């Protein structure tokens, strides 16, 4: 297992470096934006003031409170220190709410939307793709262009069209929010029902596009596998079709599973546009609001969370692959 341990260590090292780069980027980029983040709150406080000096003092006070009057390097140091203590800082725009609070309230919505949608889309898409590859014929000829077309509709366009059609014109579904505004979050059938109603449209839009993409991918992989030598050989040997099919799809699934795991990794950040279009209270909406208001801590917090989940997902995949796939293990050995 020695070669494998080396592989593990090398990969972990590399991921840590990437994490550091991500940290620096998500700290630096928002601060490069021109414009003073305190201006929103400072201009509210100084509304009605007529003396330049006192208004200026208001700005300076806020800048000191938010810690942005110090040089960039010092700010980065403070940021890292707080990060190790688990403190993501206090939001500028929603002062004095803590960033970790805001994120904690948003993550369940994002995950609750994305996770089932990705899973359902993945399962349905792969089934459709496999069937199309296996059956060929008319089903394949119709399915493929349809799937391709839906896949090429940009996701937000589909979202807007569905919003317009089902939400506004047909009035079947509500058009914004996570749940009915009249309600207060609590555990009851009514509330859950309301959540589901608000959940349907964004859910469907993600599912449809995912189905399209997965179907195409699965179909390709299945065709590839179906043409492989061992399939022909097995058929010649007289092995039952269903058994052959099982082997084929097991092999075809491999890259699809990678794809699934990666999608799950991008889940936290991937629904950005969907959430914005449907004003769903998830991380995407918060990130966007934060960018609009130049709310540095919230921007950094959101982007950090997104980067972290993606890195984590990728890392886990690499580890699992290393253990599970004998081909990769062999290649690893060979490379070493």
């Amino acid at each position, binding site marked *: 297992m020695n070669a494998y341990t080396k592989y593990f260590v090398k990969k972990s090292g*590399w991921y840590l*470096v*990437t994490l550091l*780069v*991500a940290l620096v*980027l*998500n700290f630096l*980029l*928002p601060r*490069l*934006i*021109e414009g003073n983040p305190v201006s929103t709150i400072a201009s509210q406080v100084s509304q009605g003031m007529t003396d330049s000096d006192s208004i200026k003092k208001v700005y300076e006070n806020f800048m000191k409170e938010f810690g942005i009057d110090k040089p960039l390097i010092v700010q980065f140091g403070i940021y890292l220190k707080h990060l190790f203590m688990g403190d993501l800082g206090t939001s500028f725009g929603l002062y004095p709410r803590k960033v970790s609070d805001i994120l904690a309230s948003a993550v369940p919505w994002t995950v609750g939307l994305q996770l089932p949608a990705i899973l359902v889309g993945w399962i349905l898409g792969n089934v459709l793709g496999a069937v199309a590859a296996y059956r*060929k014929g008319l089903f394949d000829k119709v399915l493929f*262009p349809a799937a*391709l*077309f839906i*896949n*090429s*509709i*940009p996701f*937000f*366009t589909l979202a*807007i*069209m569905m*919003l*317009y059609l089902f939400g*506004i*014109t047909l009035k079947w579904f509500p058009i914004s929010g996570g749940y009915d505004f009249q309600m207060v979050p609590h555990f009851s059938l009514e509330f859950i029902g309301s959540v589901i109603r608000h959940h349907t449209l964004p859910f469907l839009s993600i599912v449809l596009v995912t189905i399209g993409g997965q179907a195409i991918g699965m179909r*390709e992989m299945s*065709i*590839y596998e*179906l*043409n492989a030598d061992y399939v022909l050989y097995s058929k010649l040997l007289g092995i039952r079709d269903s058994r052959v099919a099982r082997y084929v799809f097991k092999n075809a699934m491999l890259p699809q599973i990678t794809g699934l795991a990666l999608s799950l990794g*991008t889940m936290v*950040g*991937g629904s*950005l*546009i969907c959430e*914005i279009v449907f004003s769903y209270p998830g991380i995407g909406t918060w*990130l*966007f609001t934060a*960018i609009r208001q130049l709310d540095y801590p919230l*921007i950094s917090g959101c*982007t950090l969370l*997104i*980067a972290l989940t*993606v*890195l984590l997902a*990728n890392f886990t995949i690499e580890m699992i692959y290393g253990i599970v796939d004998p081909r990769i293990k062999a290649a690893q050995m060979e490379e070493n």
Partner: protein
Amino acid sequence: MTHSVRILLKSPKFLIGAIATLLMLALVVIYPLVNKSDPFEMKALAFQPPGSGLPLGSDNFGRDLFLELVYGIRTSVAVGLIAGLCATAIGLIIGLASGYVGGWIDNVLTAVTNMFIVIPSFMILILVSVSINSRSSLVVALIIGLTSWPWTARAVRAQTVSLRNRDHVNLAKISGHSTPRIIAFEILPYIASYVVMAFILQVASGILAEASISMLGLGPYNTISLGIMMNWALVFEAPVSGAWWAFIPAAFAIAVITFSLYMMNTGMDEIFNPKIRS
């Protein structure tokens, strides 16, 4: 080469995609020559339905939507092309270098590539778009190109690695040809078809990225693109007013363009990729 082209022309998928694209490009080039008005001109009331003189009605500013659509497609395709070119070029160079040369250059470049792949590019795109001051379509195209190359680089590298041990390459090496020459003449022709497919995909994703970023309001100033049209429609509450003509045609246009590009790509894939020839 001619042989490949002839085979391509026989593929129905490729043909559909190519014809659709060409038709759209033709419309975009010819219509402005016929209708010389300024798309920015506000000639009607806001949100007029399609009718007299305005084939697609007017948007929230009272501008001719059909004219805007044509100019919008032009800008979006242009941005997509530049972004695609940029991304493919960078991806090609990096992929070839790391694939052929190998060694520590390979390790460094691969690490960088993987880094770019893992850090969500759309996020970086948003952050960079917000931070720069001048937002012309060229700048937006370059930014998109600079954030979407990793995928091409990875694919090119994989192909190059599998090619680098072939006989003809070894022959050229022994003959003492220089590295750039080997890459250009021995490796490039074999992956040419692959590069073209990658380019088409990059153009499609460039168009999508531009549409997404413009829809969020971070697109180029003072231009009309499909994403910007949809953005205006959302900001000025077109769906609530029932003015479907303000955003549905633009959305549809994006879908058709990307669809035809994907079709072209699939057609080419079926021909050039021996693995999935059924």
